[in-house]
């Protein structure tokens, strides 16, 4: 039976991380649809999702053949690199050291780029438009697949809550995209990345430690301790870095 110490954070991490990735993908798919038409935009997105599905089917069972300690160490290390990268950037953005990511600006830049790209037709398909839509879905989708597999593959039965979290995020973003027809600029992307960075760093540290043969105090429950630890550290660093940037030179 899966404990809530694992399943709850797995589901939440996969949902929040996927939400951020799907919002970024939606921005570009919307730009393609608006400028070059919905047929190539949706075809590219569909092709991307199908390719990702094949990747999951091919990679998922292959992971089960690798010894658990090796999977925990490798996946934990990759999760740490991924999570700390997100957390570092989110802290720097929250502290005002680097600018925030703005979906409206990203949408305007993509729309401008697509408006000036020439149409290259292949069997009646606008290949630039299909390519742009396919590329963004693949790029953001690979991150989602990695997160779901990384969060889900290291513990028995965790792939289901992680997969459900990602599927729920996809449904939310698609529904909002259909309803609003504009980039989801109001979603607090940096706050989400901050939280996801904390969750993935905590999971990564836990699994890397398990893979290295270390014994965590409180066993599985130490994941909650790690989440609290990374969260406290990140919040303190935001306050500290903000204070340093606001101090007169």
């Amino acid at each position, binding site marked *: 039976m899966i404990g809530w110490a694992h399943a709850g954070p797995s589901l939440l991490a996969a949902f929040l991380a996927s939400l951020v990735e799907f919002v970024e993908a939606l921005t570009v798919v919307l730009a393609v649809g608006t400028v070059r038409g919905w047929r190539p935009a949706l075809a590219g997105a569909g092709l991307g999702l199908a390719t990702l599905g094949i990747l999951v089917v091919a990679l998922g069972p292959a992971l089960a053949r690798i010894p658990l300690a090796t999977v925990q*160490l490798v996946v934990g*290390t*990759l999760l*740490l*690199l*991924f999570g*700390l*990268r997100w*957390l*570092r*950037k989110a*802290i*720097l953005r929250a*502290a005002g*050291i*680097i600018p925030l990511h703005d979906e409206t600006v990203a949408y305007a830049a993509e729309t401008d780029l697509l408006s000036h790209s020439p149409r290259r037709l292949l069997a009646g398909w606008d290949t630039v438009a299909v390519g742009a839509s396919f590329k963004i879905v693949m*790029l953001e989708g*690979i*991150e989602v697949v*990695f997160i779901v597999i990384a969060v889900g593959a290291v513990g028995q039965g965790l792939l289901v809550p992680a997969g459900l979290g990602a599927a729920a995020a996809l449904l939310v973003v698609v529904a909002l995209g259909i309803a609003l027809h504009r980039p989801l600029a109001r979603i607090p992307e940096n706050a989400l990345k901050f939280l996801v960075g904390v969750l993935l*760093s905590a999971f990564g*540290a836990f699994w*890397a*430690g398990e*893979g*290295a*043969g*270390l*014994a*965590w*105090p*409180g066993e599985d429950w*130490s994941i909650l301790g*790690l989440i609290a*630890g*990374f969260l406290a*550290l990140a919040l303190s*660093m935001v306050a500290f*870095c903000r204070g*340093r*940037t606001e101090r007169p*030179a």
Partner: protein
Amino acid sequence: MTWLTGAARELLGLFVDDGSLAVAVLAWIAAAVLVFPRLPIGGGWLAVALFLGLALILVENLLRTARRRRP
């Protein structure tokens, strides 16, 4: 080939943004695998040390970045 290089760069970019952070994290995990088991410390202390080391790596990287980018 350009497409393949681009894809490899994108994939690497998922995990590595600041090279020094990635190298420090990898070195600390390597220490946890190779050095920690030889230390005469037991219980959960080594796992706690793993977390504290990661926290220190992140703090050092943030302070260095903040100092570099200070207006």
